């Protein structure tokens, strides 16, 4: 799967040819560097590792420094592997947006969703809560209700949806359309929202075929 690493900058809206407003996420994808090429012979599978974003040399461990030195690049913040990369690349090559994507393509965008903290069952799982605040309802408007039966099975089944930590998870949004590419600025605009906060790393994946 071909792809790139980028950074979410924020959202805006542009107008399409019909004059309709399209909400877009602005993603910065400065040229990614090929930091490693894995092949069936050496690693039992084919993949390309890309690097994105600058990292201070002082903050890089020596083993990683060696890894970047091998590719002939400066240390990078984020490294992501793409299996079965179909664009022919060499170690140390840079890949920019236009090498992988075109305007109008659909992409999958992977990111880490914003952390919401410890959330109740209504926000976290979409439980409906109790619809009434009156008619004898005391103080359990947003509670989950019963979490199990009685003598049988005498326990709570595994995986039952309850309150807990929400967000801060890897999320993939599929089939987002690329509305615009600004090649000189290494910026692309993707229709709709993308997981993560501003400044978060996102992985752009292109589905083959």
């Amino acid at each position, binding site marked *: 799967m071909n792809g790139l690493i980028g950074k979410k900058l924020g959202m805006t809206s*542009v107008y399409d040819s019909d004059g309709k407003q399209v909400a877009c996420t602005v993603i*910065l994808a400065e040229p990614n560097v090929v930091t490693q090429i894995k092949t069936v012979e050496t690693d039992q599978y084919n993949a390309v590792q890309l690097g994105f974003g600058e990292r201070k040399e002082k903050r890089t461990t020596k083993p990683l420094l060696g890894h970047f030195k091998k590719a002939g690049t400066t240390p990078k913040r984020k490294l992501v592997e793409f299996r079965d990369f179909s664009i022919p690349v060499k170690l140390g090559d840079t890949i920019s947006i236009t090498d992988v994507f075109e305007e109008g393509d659909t992409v999958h965008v992977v990111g880490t969703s914003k952390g919401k903290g410890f959330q109740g069952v209504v926000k976290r799982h979409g439980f409906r809560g109790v619809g009434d605040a009156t008619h004898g309802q005391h103080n359990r408007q947003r509670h989950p209700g019963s979490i199990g039966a009685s003598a049988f099975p005498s326990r709570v089944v595994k995986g039952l949806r309850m309150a807990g930590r929400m967000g801060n998870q890897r999320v993939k949004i599929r089939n987002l359309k690329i509305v615009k590419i*600004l090649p000189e*600025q290494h910026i692309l605009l993707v229709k709709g929202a993308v997981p993560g906060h501003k400044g978060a790393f996102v992985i752009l994946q292109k589905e083959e075929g």
Partner: protein
Amino acid sequence: MDHLVRQVEEQLLQTDHIPDFRPGDTVEVSYKIVEGNKERIQKFKGVVLKIEGEGKRKTFTVRKMSGNIGVERIFPFACPNVVEVKVTKYGKVRRAKLYYLRGRVGKKARIKERQVFKKSDNNSQKA
């Protein structure tokens, strides 16, 4: 807002065809409407109630009286379907948001006129 997002907006949104006006001014907005494959221009004339937002994504709200019902429409400055905006009257108001007009009809809803000296300049194009 990220300065790069702003840069993108500057690049992709076009607002040069809209003249300068302020809340309190009376404008006539020509708005393109596409019905099926037919296009026509609709005009909406009224008082500018407010200008909201910043940069190229600003919007303005126009209020008019249709019969005796107040109608408000929000237009983005950058919307390509806003073909033309003509300023027909300059108003003198002391507020940025003229919500008080909503409760007023007839003589009470009048706005004092503002003297504009470089009218021709203002009407043609933003400097």
